[in-house]
């Protein structure tokens, strides 16, 4: 039974298209198509399948339509002109293969005179053969609402007389993108559901691919149709790796690439080549090429980011939209570094279309996180959480947020900066920088301890989460603060000392932005706070060395 229905589902679209064209009315065409299929389900098991099933269905449906119009004169009068048209057309020779008239139907369903939200619904209803409740489920609206929308759209087609025709070659460039947009919007809803319990709705994505396959068969020479089909296949190939067993979100960078559908990728790649050959590339073909580069990469960092950025540059020319600019910025972050990527994100922040766009908020939060700008990252994840659509997207943003709050990373700043050797290298580099600076070097007159570098390294070791290398060895916090105090105002010198510190980090190849930031913050704080007492009388004896961690100064531990 299911098999028979699958056969009829394909046949149904063809039949409907031919009848709609003949009678100019989708309602009548749907009604008699269903009746003809019902008749076939009753008759064929008894009489056997006729030699030309398509022709049989067509003749049966057409006869039922004529009966219906004879019975209902008012209805017939509404369609009068078209009936004349129909009679003028040569009666179809029942022996021939039924001509495929679904292309006309594609253009009618995606007609710009219809409401954008109705085009997808009508396309799914008429060409994918979904029932009205199925279409309602696809768009997450009540069946009654969807039924009303479909009735309204069909009424407009009939009464405003939207024709069932394929636009001429001169109109095609203007009209084809509309049809492709309808199919792609069905796909994107399947790729990332705008709400509901699931991230992906594979049935919808598959319907979109099925529609694109039909369209590709009907318009094999249209590069953008090929490009769209390729794009959807290359993305859909990752479906199994995109969610965890519990339905949670797995981002591209974390996906198990062995779980991708490699035969689908192969099919997509072949189509991309066709789509990009002979003639200027359209936006879907360029996006497909980008998807192919992702699919071909061994892993996320090994992706050909320069090529991806270059393709986004091409895409931005074809489709200068903020969403394309966002994707380009994300690729730039991978090619040129997070800082460069974030700068582009900040430029886009005021785009109205991105302000409430979940992927923008999430990607920005991830960049801030990677750059170690934790308070901003937290705020950005909170924003992403409020904008998330489906439940898994919300859960993903919540997880990220939670990981921000339990902040304590396993590694101390001391360890991340290379342990005792790292501390020593940093202290030495800073010392050299300082001694080379005309102003800051004044701080070292009168002469200081010959082992200043070692003492400084030991002090930092203790301050940044390492072992107790200073207290009890060289002295204690009070002695350090007293040595640095009582020198009056020297803000300018402090700032120069901090600049020397930043340069010193670069000198020893300390490049991780998050680590640089926390070290800089610590040094600047220490320079301006404990090491900057104007009067040594206020410094008590029992001070502990202030401890600094990834999120700043630590409360003194109870002992």
């Amino acid at each position: 039974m299911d098999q028979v229905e699958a056969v009829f589902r394909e046949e149904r679209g063809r039949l409907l298209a031919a009848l709609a064209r003949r009678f100019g009315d989708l309602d009548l065409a749907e009604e008699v198509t269903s009746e003809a299929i019902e008749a076939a389900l009753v008759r064929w098991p008894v009489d056997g399948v006729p030699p030309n099933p398509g022709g049989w269905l067509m003749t049966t449906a057409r006869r039922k339509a004529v009966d219906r119009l004879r019975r209902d004169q008012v209805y017939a009068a509404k369609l009068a002109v078209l009936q004349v048209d129909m009679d003028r057309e040569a009666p179809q020779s029942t022996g021939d293969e039924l001509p495929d008239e679904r292309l006309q139907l594609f253009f009618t369903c995606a007609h710009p005179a219809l409401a954008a939200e109705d085009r997808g619904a009508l396309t799914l209803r008429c060409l994918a053969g979904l029932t009205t409740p199925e279409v309602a489920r696809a768009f997450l609206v009540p069946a009654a609402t969807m039924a009303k929308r479909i009735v309204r759209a069909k009424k407009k087609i009939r009464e405003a007389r939207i024709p069932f025709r394929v636009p001429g070659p001169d109109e095609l460039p203007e009209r084809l993108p509309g049809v492709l947009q309808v199919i792609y919007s069905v796909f994107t809803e399947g790729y990332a559901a705008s709400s509901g319990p699931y991230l992906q709705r594979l049935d919808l994505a598959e319907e979109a691919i099925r529609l694109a396959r039909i369209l590709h068969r009907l318009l094999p020479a249209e590069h953008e149709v090929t490009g769209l089909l390729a794009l959807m296949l290359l993305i859909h190939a990752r479906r199994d790796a995109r969610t965890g067993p519990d339905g949670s979100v797995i981002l591209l960078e974390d996906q198990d690439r062995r779980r991708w559908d490699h035969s689908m990728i192969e099919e997509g790649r072949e189509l991309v080549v066709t789509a990009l050959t002979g003639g200027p590339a359209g936006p879907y073909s360029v996006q497909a090429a980008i998807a192919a580069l992702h699919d071909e990469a061994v892993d996320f960092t090994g992706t050909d980011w320069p090529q991806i950025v270059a393709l986004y540059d091409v895409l931005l020319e074809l489709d200068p939209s903020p969403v394309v600019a966002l994707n380009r910025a994300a690729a730039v972050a991978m090619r040129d570094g997070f800082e460069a990527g974030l700068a582009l994100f900040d430029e886009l922040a005021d785009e109205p279309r991105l302000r409430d766009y979940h992927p923008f908020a999430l990607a920005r939060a991830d960049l801030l996180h990677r750059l170690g700008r934790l308070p901003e990252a937290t705020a950005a994840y909170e924003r992403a959480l409020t904008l998330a659509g489906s439940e898994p997207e919300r859960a993903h943003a919540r997880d990220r947020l939670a990981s921000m709050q339990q902040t304590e990373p396993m590694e101390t700043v001391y360890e991340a900066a290379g342990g005792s050797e790292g501390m020593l290298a940093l202290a030495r580099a800073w010392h050299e920088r300082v001694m080379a600076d005309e102003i800051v070097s004044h701080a070292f007159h009168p002469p200081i301890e010959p082992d200043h570098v070692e003492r400084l390294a030991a002090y930092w070791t203790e301050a940044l989460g390492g072992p107790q290398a200073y207290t009890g060895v060289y002295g204690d916090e009070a002695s350090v603060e007293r040595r640095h105090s009582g020198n009056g105002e020297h803000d300018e010198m402090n700032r120069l000392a901090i600049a020397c510190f930043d340069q010193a980090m670069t000198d020893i190849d300390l490049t991780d932005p998050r680590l640089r930031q926390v070290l800089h913050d610590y040094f600047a704080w220490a320079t301006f706070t404990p090491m900057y007492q104007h009067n040594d009388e206020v410094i008590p004896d029992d001070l502990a060395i202030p401890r600094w961690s990834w999120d700043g100064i630590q409360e003194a531990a109870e002992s």
Partner: protein
Amino acid sequence: MKYLLLINAGELDPENAPVGCEPEDWMRFDKEITESGVVVASESLADLVTATRVQVANDGKRTVTDGPFAETREVLGGIYVIDVPDLDVALDWAAKCPGSRGGGSVVVRPVAEFPGA
């Protein structure tokens, strides 16, 4: 099938003429559409300041008021009724109409058909 094209002027220049289309554009368009044989009726409306509104209340009392004057920038400036095979052809004529340019628009309304009328 008959369609009414409602031509709404967009931005007007200080002389209350639509921006972006010259009288020659209109004459060329009118000649083209008339010669194609699709025009059933066409009128261009006098200046909006000459408009008068009439309303009759339930008790039969007639109210006549000056105006209405446009609250938006779009002002109905003229109409065509054309008889063409389908909406696409009507939309093509609407797109050719100079009134669809310069911030103006043409609204295409199918004329209701009453069977037996």
